[in-house]
């Protein structure tokens, strides 16, 4: 690593694209990812809109391309803890958290996970599936190196006994590494909002009110239920309603922005539901239908005409759980009178918010956030430039955008970082 190299923070689609573009141009890249695997939020999706392509099928080759690229060093389970210097010569300290597994020796066979007696909810599956204490977050994880959850581990040692490579390292310590880079790209993505604070919808109180990302895991063939949509009480699902703009376009908690994806996301989930179960009733309760992208309106038309998805204009004000655990939604379609819709399951399309820890990272990097904690741009005509020279931003962490836009943004950030490290004009460095 040298001043001719670039640090990319965040291994989602935007970060991977930026890293890959830079690497292809012959620039060394250090890609730092907080979780155990690169792939980001897209890896959690079943399909993508508006083409219904399998998300992981598109993503997994990209993840491998990134990981195996000779110019990219991927540091997973790692976080940037300090940045010194200035544009052209940043000194970055990165904390590598211990996996308690020797990364060189582990061949990803999964024997440790099979014998582990622990049951821990898997964040990747939105806590809908149990994993062992020795685990990878999902099957296609890259790198395919297991990790031990030592916080919850009861230290029985079974994993160590079965590991044929003797790769278990209970005494592994956190490691501090330093890299010198000329530019930095931040692409830390988003977190889905926990909607339990929006009390009128009863999330967390009613069993059959889910978030869109939870539903995405349910309908995913590789998900916790193998793609079968079921309720916790085992009842067959006959009707599902999606509620749009939950926590987004909401001034009550300073989130007036549109999440930019949930109209299409809900349409996709409704179409997938219809493909799995043509007889299930699907309704989408929306505020405004924002089909602004290429092929988006056609996608909604197909949902309506070919799949029979029902679109209802009206933001519900209340959900009540009935004795049979069905849900009664109160809404007012033309502000005329109150209508009730009874469904078996409600999916809340929640706001997507800046990732946890964004303020800390902004402080470490010395860059500013906007009023909603997205990274601030220096000026609107440089859509990847943060408030500090040499630090660029890509993807959802700058502003709401969908997957193709995040990828384009990643490429844009990469090209600006290239200017810096390939010795563009000096005035850029001021």
């Amino acid at each position, binding site marked *: 690593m040298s001043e001719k190299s670039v640090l990319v923070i965040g291994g989602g689609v935007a970060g991977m694209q930026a890293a890959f573009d830079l690497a292809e141009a012959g620039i060394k890249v250090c890609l730092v990812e907080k979780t155990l695997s690169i792939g980001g939020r897209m890896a959690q999706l079943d399909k993508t809109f508006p083409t219904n392509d399998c998300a992981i099928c598109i993503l997994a080759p990209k993840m491998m391309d990134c990981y195996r690229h000779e110019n990219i060093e991927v540091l997973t389970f790692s976080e940037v803890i300090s940045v010194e210097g200035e544009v052209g010569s940043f000194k970055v300290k990165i904390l590598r958290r211990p996996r308690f597994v020797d990364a060189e020796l582990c061949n990803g066979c999964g024997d440790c996970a099979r014998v582990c007696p622990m049951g821990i909810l898997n964040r990747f599956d939105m806590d809908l599936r149990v994993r062992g204490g020795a685990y990878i977050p999902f099957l296609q994880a890259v790198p395919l190196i297991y990790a031990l959850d030592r916080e919850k581990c009861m230290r029985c040692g079974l994993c160590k006994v079965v590991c044929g490579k003797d790769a278990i390292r209970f005494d592994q310590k956190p490691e501090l590494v330093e890299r010198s880079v000329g530019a930095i790209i931040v692409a830390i993505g988003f977190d889905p909002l926990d909607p339990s604070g929006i*009390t*009128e919808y009863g999330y967390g109180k009613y069993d059959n009110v889910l978030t869109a990302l939870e539903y995405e895991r349910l309908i995913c063939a590789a998900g916790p239920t193998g793609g079968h949509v079921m309720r916790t009480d085992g009842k067959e699902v006959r009707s599902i309603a999606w509620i749009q*703009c939950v926590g987004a*376009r*909401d*001034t*009550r908690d300073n989130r*007036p922005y549109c999440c930019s994806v949930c109209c299409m996301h809900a349409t996709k989930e409704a179409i997938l539901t219809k493909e799995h179960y043509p007889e299930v009733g699907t309704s989408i309760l929306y*505020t*405004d239908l924002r089909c602004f992208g290429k092929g988006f309106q056609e996608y909604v038309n197909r949902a309506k005409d070919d799949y029979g998805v029902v679109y209802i*204009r*009206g*933001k*519900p*004000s*209340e959900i*009540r759980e009935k004795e049979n655990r069905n849900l009664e939604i*109160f*809404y*007012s*379609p*033309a*502000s*005329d*009178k*109150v*209508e009730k819709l009874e469904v078996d399951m409600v999916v809340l399309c929640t706001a997507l918010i800046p990732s946890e820890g964004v303020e800390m990272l902004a402080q470490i990097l010395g860059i500013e956030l906007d009023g909603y904690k997205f990274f601030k741009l220096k000026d609107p005509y440089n859509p990847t430039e943060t408030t500090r020279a040499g630090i660029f931003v890509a993807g959802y962490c700058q502003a709401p955008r969908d997957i193709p836009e995040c990828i384009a943004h990643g490429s844009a950030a990469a090209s600006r970082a290239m200017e810096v490290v390939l010795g563009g004009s000096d005035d850029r460095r001021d």
Partner: protein
Amino acid sequence: MRADCRMEKITEIINRTKAYYCVECGKCTSACPLSRFGDYSPDRVVERTLIGLPVRPDLRIWSCLTCGRCKEVCTYGVDYPEFIRRIRSVAKGEKEQGICAHGELFSVMRLLTRQSETPQKRLYWVSEDLMVRDKGDMLYFTGCLPYFDIVFRDLGVHTVEIARSTVKILNKLDVVPVVMNDEVCCGHDLYWNGEIETFKRLAAINIQNIARRGAKKVIFSCPEGYRTFKLDYPEFFDLDFELVHISEFLAEQLDEGKIDFRTIDEPVTYHDPCRLGRHLGVYDAPRRVISTIAPNFVEMASNRENSLCCGTAGWTNCDSFSEEIRGERLKECSDTGAQMMITSCPKCLIHFKCHMSNRKGDYDLEIVPFEVFVARAMGLVK
């Protein structure tokens, strides 16, 4: 009023209440207690105003309960109750008014603004066992309790018991509150019915009288009075005394371990008055106190910010829909299994008691004012 002048006022109302943010999503309509039982749509009223249609004469502006449920669920920040209140004051300026459900009640409030030769006898409820004074740091703003006690005696509500309980609780906690015979109506009902000038006169009298007593802190049992002092008086006057609701005061004392209660085993539930809850955000303090006394405290299906209204506010437009809303709320109460519903608002108490008195035998419920409930638990009243 000239048309352009009225237009200017309406535009200001739209701006002040952010009505222009309305996207007609219908969330308020589906949340409105009135629309659940009748036909009412806040966003329709807003839209009519936004596109410049005359907002009056229109009875819809007088039907609103101002309960604030619409404002609570609105994700665009439209303050509909305030919108209605301001539109009403425009309408009032043009000699329109809603239907007061209790005859000439408003006239009495107006009369209070006049100088009178014979002083009112507002402190008739202060019995010998109560310690009160005329000057001091802490003042208890009694509000209309002594007045309601007489007007609504046929319902058996005895609202002066609320005032007596409040003073007994304060005495027990070594507070001898100031009470004022020259206190006047806080003006809440007139304010919400568009009568701003009379409201300001009442406010001025109260503020002057409180200042003369040297009070540093004013304590309220009535949520309407508390709201009016806290949010509406400062629109026109500077207050140099602190305001506190009895529930907040008690919760604080509870934290400091200063109160002993006799606990009860029976389940009880609590009805959030709109002024204390949604308007002022005081949800936790009464719950802290009640659940300490009654560990088997249960919530009704709709509670806190989603709480159902008692059916009317400001004595305006109490009708069959209001009755249905009350019935629904009392059903929610019965569904919890609790036989005691506690509320901190004398008007909620009056409204529920009125509903029950017309349907004798339908309900096996007791509606207890918060202050009386606490005083009983402290062994101060029976």
